[in-house]
C-alpha cells in the first residue's frame, strides 16, 4: 500500500469511535470527509488564541487574524497552482462558487439564445444555476452525452460547443467516479470561443490539481470534502475575468466606497467576499491542505487507484452478476467512488442493513437526478473511499452485503 493507512486512521478522532463495540467503516467521503486531529486543533487553537475580525481593525489581534486568513488563501493558491492568491475567492462551498459564476459572469455576458454546454453527469450544483439563468434569460443548455461505461462521449463535442459561450463540466463524477479529461475539455471550449468552468469538488480532494495546466477559466471546490471544515469553499477564476465581472453578493468587505447614490466595489478578492467570511474555517482549510501536502496528493491518488482496483476485484469476484457497479472499470479514468445496485435490494434498504454493521454509505440520487434517469434507476447505493480507507473496509462492505440478502430472502 502506498499510504500507511493505519497511522492515518489514528489521526482521525472520529474514526476511533465504536458503535455497539464495532469500529466504524466510513464509506461516504464523496458526500463529506472526516477531519484529522490537526484540522480540529488548528481551529480550536485559533479560536483560543487568535480569533478576531479580519480586514477591519487596527489592533494587533485583528492584524494577526487577518494575516492567518490571508495565509490560508496563499496555501490554496499553492495547492491548486493558481497564478495569484488574489484570484482565490473564499465562498461557502462549491455550490456558491458555481452560482457566483452563473450569476455574476452569466448575467453580465449571456443573452437569450446564448448557449451553455453541460454534461449529463453534472451535480445539481452545476445544473440548477444554469437552469435558473435559462428561465431568466432564455439561454439554451446543451448536454454532452455519456458512453455506456460512464465516460463523456466526446464524439460530437465540437458541434455541441459550436457557438457556445461557456462549457461547465465536472472533473470527477460524484456518482460514477469518472475522471474527465479536463485539459482536453478546456481546450475544446477555448477552440469554440467558450469559457471552461470546472466543477472540481470531487477532484481536488483526491488528485494533484493544477489550474494552469488545465488552462481552466473557473474552478470551484469545497473544503469539507478534503479533510477541511464545512462552511468554506473556493472559487478560483482567471484574473481578467474576475476583474471584468460585476460583484455577486453586496455588503460589507466587498466595497471600496459607498455613497447615498451608489457604491464602488473593492479589488479582488474582497469584491466577491461580501460580509464576514468563514474565518476559523479558512484556518481549518489551511491545516487540511498542509495535511494533504504532507501525504502528497500523488500518493493519495495512487492509494485510491489501489483501493478502487481491490474493490472492483473483490465485489465482482464475490457477487458476479448480483452486483452492478456503475462507471468505468479502468482505474486510470476513475476514482474510488462506486455507485452500485445489489440484487434488486433498494439502496435505502441496503444502507439501512449495512448501518447495523457500522458500514456508512449513501443511498439516493446523489443530487444527480438527470444521470439517474439515464441509468434508469431512481437511486443507487454509493460507497466512496478516501485516504483513511483500506482493504479491510472493502472487505467489511463485501461481508455486510451478505447480511442484506438474508433479510430480503434473496
Amino acid at each position, binding site marked *: 500500500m502506498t499510504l500507511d493507512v493505519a497511522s492515518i486512521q489514528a489521526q482521525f478522532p472520529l474514526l476511533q469511535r465504536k*458503535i*455497539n463495540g464495532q469500529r466504524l467503516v466510513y464509506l461516504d467521503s464523496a458526500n463529506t470527509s472526516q477531519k484529522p486531529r490537526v484540522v480540529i486543533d488548528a481551529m480550536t487553537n485559533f479560536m483560543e488564541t487568535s480569533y478576531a475580525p479580519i480586514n477591519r481593525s487596527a489592533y494587533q489581534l485583528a492584524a494577526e487574524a487577518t494575516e492567518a486568513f490571508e495565509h490560508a488563501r496563499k496555501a490554496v493558491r499553492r495547492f491548486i497552482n493558481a497564478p495569484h492568491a488574489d484570484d482565490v475567492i473564499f465562498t461557502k462551498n462549491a455550490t456558491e462558487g458555481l452560482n457566483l459564476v452563473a450569476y455574476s459572469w452569466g448575467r453580465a455576458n449571456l443573452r437569450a439564445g446564448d448557449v451553455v454546454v453541460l454534461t449529463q453527469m453534472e451535480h445539481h450544483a452545476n445544473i440548477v444555476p444554469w437552469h435558473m439563468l435559462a428561465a431568466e434569460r432564455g439561454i439554451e443548455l446543451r448536454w454532452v452525452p455519456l458512453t455506456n461505461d460512464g465516460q463523456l462521449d466526446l464524439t460530437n463535442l465540437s458541434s455541441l460547443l459550436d457557438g457556445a459561450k461557456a462549457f461547465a463540466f465536472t472533473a470527477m463524477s460524484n456518482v460514477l467516479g469518472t475522471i474527465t479529461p479536463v485539459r482536453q475539455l478546456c481546450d475544446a471550449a477555448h477552440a469554440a470561443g467558450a469559457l471552461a468552468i470546472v466543477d472540481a469538488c470531487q477532484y481536488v480532494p483526491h488528485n494533484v490539481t493544477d489550474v494552469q495546466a488545465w488552462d481552466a477559466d473557473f474552478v470551484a471546490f469545497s473544503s469539507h470534502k478534503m479533510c477541511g471544515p464545512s462552511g468554506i469553499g473556493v472559487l478560483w477564476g482567471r484574473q481578467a475575468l474576475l476583474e471584468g465581472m460585476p460583484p455577486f453578493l453586496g455588503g460589507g468587505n466587498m466595497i471600496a466606497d459607498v455613497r447615498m447614490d451608489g457604491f464602488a466595489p473593492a479589488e479582488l478578492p474582497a469584491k466577491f467576499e461580501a460580509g464576514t467570511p468563514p474565518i476559523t474555517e479558512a484556518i481549518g482549510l489551511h491545516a487540511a491542505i498542509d495535511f494533504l501536502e504532507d501525504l502528497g496528493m500523488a500518493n493519495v491518488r495512487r492509494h485510491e487507484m489501489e483501493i478502487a482496483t481491490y474493490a472492483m476485484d473483490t465485489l465482482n469476484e464475490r457477487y458476479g452478476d448480483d452486483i452492478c457497479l456503475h462507471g468505468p472499470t479502468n482505474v486510470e479514468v476513475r476514482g474510488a467512488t462506486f455507485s452500485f445496485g445489489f440484487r434488486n435490494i*433498494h*439502496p*435505502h*434498504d441496503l444502507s*439501512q*442493513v449495512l448501518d*447495523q454493521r457500522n458500514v456508512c454509505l449513501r*443511498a*439516493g*440520487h446523489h443530487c444527480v*437526478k438527470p444521470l*439517474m434517469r439515464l441509468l434508469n434507476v*431512481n*437511486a443507487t447505493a454509493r460507497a466512496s473511499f478516501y485516504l483513511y480507507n483500506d482493504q479491510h473496509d472493502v472487505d467489511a462492505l463485501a461481508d455486510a452485503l451478505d447480511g442484506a440478502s438474508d*433479510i*430480503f*430472502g434473496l
Partner: protein
Amino acid sequence: MPGLEDLYREIILDHYRTPRNRGELPPPAAHAVGHNPLCGDEIDVYLQVDGDTITDVKVGGQGCSISQSSASMMSQAVKGRSVTEVRALVRRFKGMMSIEEELPEGERAPEVEVKLGDLEALQGVVKFPVRIKCATLAWNTLIEALAEATSA
C-alpha cells in the same frame, strides 16, 4: 440502536414482495404523483371516488421496502371507506409516525374511529427517523389525490 427486526417485520416484507392494488386507473379517476426528494422514490396514487366512497384505488411507482409496503397497505386500508374515514385514517397513521398536523382554522377532528390493522406493523419505523418520509410518501400522495377527487 433499535434492531432491524423492528423495521423489517414479516408483514412489511410480504407487502413489499407482493404489493396489493398495483396498477393504474384511467380518468376520470384522480391521480397524484408523490416524490421523496431525498431518495428519488416516486409513488403514483389513483383514486376512484363515487359519492362519498372510495370505490377503487391503485398504486404505481417504485421505492424501498418501507415506502412500497406502506403504499400497499394504505391501498388496502382505504378501499371501500368514506372520504371522512380516510382522512381520519391518514391522521392516525401520521400520528403513529409522530407527525401531528394542525387542523385548519375552525375545523374539528372527525369523530370517527378507525383501526390501523396491518398498518400497525409500520410502527417500528418511528425508531428510524430517516425512514419516516418513506413510510408517509404514499399517504401524502393519497391526500393530494383526495383533494383532486373531491374538488372535481
